[in-house]
């Protein structure tokens, strides 16, 4: 299908991009990997007057170590995140979740920043960012600000990125040595999650010292399963105790109903998958 007419700019710095965005006003759209934006344009569900392509700003693709954090540029493609040794070592949960995103073609184009800015509740990376307390670096005309994950996801397809602002970097604390697993349930092998559970555990002497659990597609935003986390802490990672803790997985959720899964089925899946995610992480 053919998108409606739009102007195209390709700035070479974040400052240029921000000013192009401000000039473009309401009607401007950022283009990252285009894997979500282009279908929207082609189906004519959106008709922006100007599309600002961030592909000409090389530093936005970088992944680096910054003290006790791993800083990932918003334009780092899923493929780069997945292959990166720093990410594997310190934020293994992100590698694992990214590996489940779509197919190799989409992963070469789609970006971490694009996926998080898009904030599709069925997307896989939001729950990871939330569970791991990532920070979002957002640039605007008056400089940059940093937003914690807990405040980043506002509603479905809505984040804390304001008008005229650009997400430039996502910073993950290091979880070196943590046991992690992303348990995804989908309709076909290369698709968004029906429900998924992101689990990161610090296991000490056979019992769970810290737990971070994020849920995908159990509400309009990614959801932190704090009830499960609390129930896990101090417990041994045995099937029975984990399953008992997983019963808390639906607390605070508002599962959607759609053609793939009605809410009650999603709730059931959330519990089963939470149990599996935690047990798999614990090894």
């Amino acid at each position, binding site marked *: 299908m053919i998108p409606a007419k739009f102007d195209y700019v390709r700035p070479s710095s974040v400052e240029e991009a921000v000013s192009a965005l401000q000039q473009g006003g309401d009607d401007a759209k950022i283009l990252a990997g285009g894997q979500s934006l282009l279908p929207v344009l082609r189906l004519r569900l959106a008709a922006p007057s100007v599309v600002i392509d961030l592909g000409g700003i090389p530093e936005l693709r970088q992944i680096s170590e910054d003290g006790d954090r791993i800083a990932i540029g918003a334009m780092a493609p899923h493929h780069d995140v997945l292959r990166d040794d720093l990410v594997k070592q310190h934020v293994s949960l992100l590698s694992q979740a990214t590996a489940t995103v779509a197919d190799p073609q989409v992963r070469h184009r789609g970006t971490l920043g694009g996926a998080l800015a898009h904030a599709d*509740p069925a*997307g896989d990376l939001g729950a990871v960012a939330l569970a791991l307390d990532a920070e979002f670096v957002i640039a605007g005309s008056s400089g940059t600000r940093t937003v914690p994950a807990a405040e980043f996801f506002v509603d479905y397809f*809505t984040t804390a990125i304001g008008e005229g602002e650009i997400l430039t970097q996502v910073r993950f604390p290091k979880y070196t040595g943590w046991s992690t697993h992303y348990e995804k349930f989908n309709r076909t092998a290369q698709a968004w999650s029906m429900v998924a559970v992101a689990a990161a555990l610090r296991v000490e002497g056979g019992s769970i010292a810290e737990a971070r659990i994020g849920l995908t597609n159990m509400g309009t935003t990614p959801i932190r399963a704090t009830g499960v986390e609390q129930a896990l802490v101090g417990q041994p990672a045995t099937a029975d105790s984990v399953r008992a803790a997983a019963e808390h997985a639906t607390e605070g959720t508002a599962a959607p109903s759609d053609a793939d899964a009605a809410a009650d089925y999603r709730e059931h899946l959330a519990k089963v998958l939470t149990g599996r995610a935690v047990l798999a992480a614990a090894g």
Partner: protein
Amino acid sequence: MTATADTTALEFGKARVRKEDARLITGRTRYTDAITPPGTLHVAVVRSPLAHARITGIDTAEAKRAPGVHGVYTVSDLGADEVGMPCAWPITPDQKAPQRPVLAKDTVHFAGEGVAVVVARSAAEAKDAADLVEVDYDPLDPVLDMEAALAEGATLVHPDLGTNESATWVFDSGEAGTGGSVADAIAAAEADPDQVVVRRRFRQQRLVPAFMEPRSCVVDPTGEQIVIWSATQVPHILRTMTTVTLGIPESKLRVIAPDVGGGFGGKIGVLPEEMMTVLLARKLGRPVKWTETRSECMLTAHHGRDQIQDLTITAKKDGTITGLDVRLLADMGAYLGLVGPGVPVLGAFMFNAIYKIPAYRFQTTNVFTTKTLTDAYRGAGRPEATFGVERIIDELAVELGREPLELREQNWIKHEEFPFTTVCGLTYDSGNYEQATARAKELFDYDALRREQAERRERGDKVQLGIGISTFTEMCGLAPSRVLGSLAYGAGGWEAASIRMLATGKVEVITGASAHGQGHETAFSQIVADKLGVPFEDVEILHGDTASSPKGLDTYGSRSLVVGGIAITMAADKVIEKAKKIAAHLLEADEADIEFSAGQFTVRGTDKGKAIQEIAFAAFMAHDYPEGMEPSLDSDAVYDPENFSFPHGTHLAAMEVDTETGRVNLRHYVCVDDIGNVVNPLIAEGQVHGGLAQGIAQALFEEANYDDQGTLVNGTFVDYTLPSAADLPSFTTEIVSTPATSNPLGVKGVGEAGTIASTPAIVNGVLDAVRHLGVADIQMPTTSQRVWRAIQEAQGRSTQETPIDTHSPGAGLGSIDPNNPQGEVQ
């Protein structure tokens, strides 16, 4: 010019890589949309968003003013008020067939129906302007459910027809004299404590054919003949039907199907868009192109399947089947497709399948709804039938407490009983169900899997194992013309071929079959190389252009090899016959003494001989040839088969079901297909693989869903869940060959086999995994949610299904929020 083939290496049976692949895979070929004669104008169709509505106004003023626009037309503006799209299969004399207009006149009957058309300099400008056409609609009630559509007082799709029933077609073996009366068989079974009656209702969901290349048509009216390029399976039928529909003399039309990217039956129709493009090109005197988008394709290209099947089977307690009764409701959609009404009828002859069933009755009632029309889709009627019978055989096995494979064997036609005339009056020429089944069991390790299944049940494993069986046959190679005539099909079933021997000994073969991904060029070249004893590389296959291949009935129903291939063989025989006369003349021998083998004409008992290439050159020079003969080896043949071809096979699926989540996993799939002699094993295997993927997809993944307003809610590849290679295991496929006796090559069709066979194997396997939990049936596709709910219900835990909000985020469009159609994505 004495190149001779290596006599030891026959082409027949060689797993040659397809010669067409290089140009297809590297993108060097040109599909219809890549053909743009100078001055081409582009078309965009304005389509109805509503399923059923009266059109109260169409305002084209703004669209006409848009940049690049040449014109905006309604059906009246095209002078096409009286034009109706053809339906070539009146299954009964009183079949009700509404006129399908080129563009809707005063009422739209399905969402996606064309209402107006924009012509512009570029496709983008046409699309932009199409968005500016304002259509006012007065909504009418949609008609969505077949049973409701037939009920008293139902809203009528076409009020002038007075009913939503298009036709009811019946076959009764008692009346036909080919078997007993089913009514008697059922009555007898009900009265007899030593017999059982099993009744089941199955649903064949609606599917989208999902071929790779969307449909496209380019018409150039500037020459003496109007040239039509179309992404069609049926260029010859398109030519004839364009004449029938628009009255343009056939001689003034040249139709070209260039390389076509798949069809699966989905490109068998004659399209309103094709006729519209012809009308526009003639009106404007310029080339015009229509290419649909993927969304238009999914919404408006005909769909497949969509039947409700009520089956009753009767049997003695010892397992002997005594009768089968089949009642179908078949959803035609809003109009009748070119052969749509006949699709369920094709299934009529296949519900009895490989079994000896003494009494049989089949009835289909074809119903109009306000949905996209249905028509042929890979297997066309036969997958539906095979599903029905293979499912109910399993149900009968459960009822009788029998091993399902043994129950099948008890009732199937034994190898020594061939040729066998079935309860439908068809004569199966050959088959060996024992051989295919024994081999499949061995490859599958059937007994070991049954043991594993028992162990998992015993242990109460979270993951249960089921074994799915389908012992299918099908009738293909459509078809003997007289049989088609007796079914009131609007064409014959022959196929044409010509062979031209060029001066240099190279060979051009012209076929009326029209490939769209099957590999005809390779397989046909192999046949001709052997027949004429020339190198494979010296054979060129020409097809898909009525200028070079004027005669043909095209490609569908697994007919290309078993009908078209035989026509080529016959033409080759005629070439040899003629060449023999010239060889005898040149070698100064009696024709009776000339022998032909591996491209050499030799005089019996001597070392004198001439190669076929030398004879071809001699015929071209024409300096010295027999009196009373034309100096040419070129030959034509038309082959009308005497019978269908009846491939068969045994398919086994190991299905794992995660009883906690309902997740179904196809662990292992084995099929052993008997497709007679095999020209090219690589192509045959490719056909089986693709066919399996499509059949498995029906069982596990695909369904075209309409909401209560008649809107197709999963009309993109994001939410119409087509499986990819990542969703399927490696298949174990094998071919055994019981040669067909109905044609000289001993071949049977293979194009649809995998699709026909696999669907019931999968569903039977899923049920076999959870039957002990009390689950009796699960509708297709057997998604994890459906499986989970079925288990919950069987265990007495009623699940509270939340009403499905198809417009919630994540409801398919994945990354697109349909609640926010303006797409304010941040």
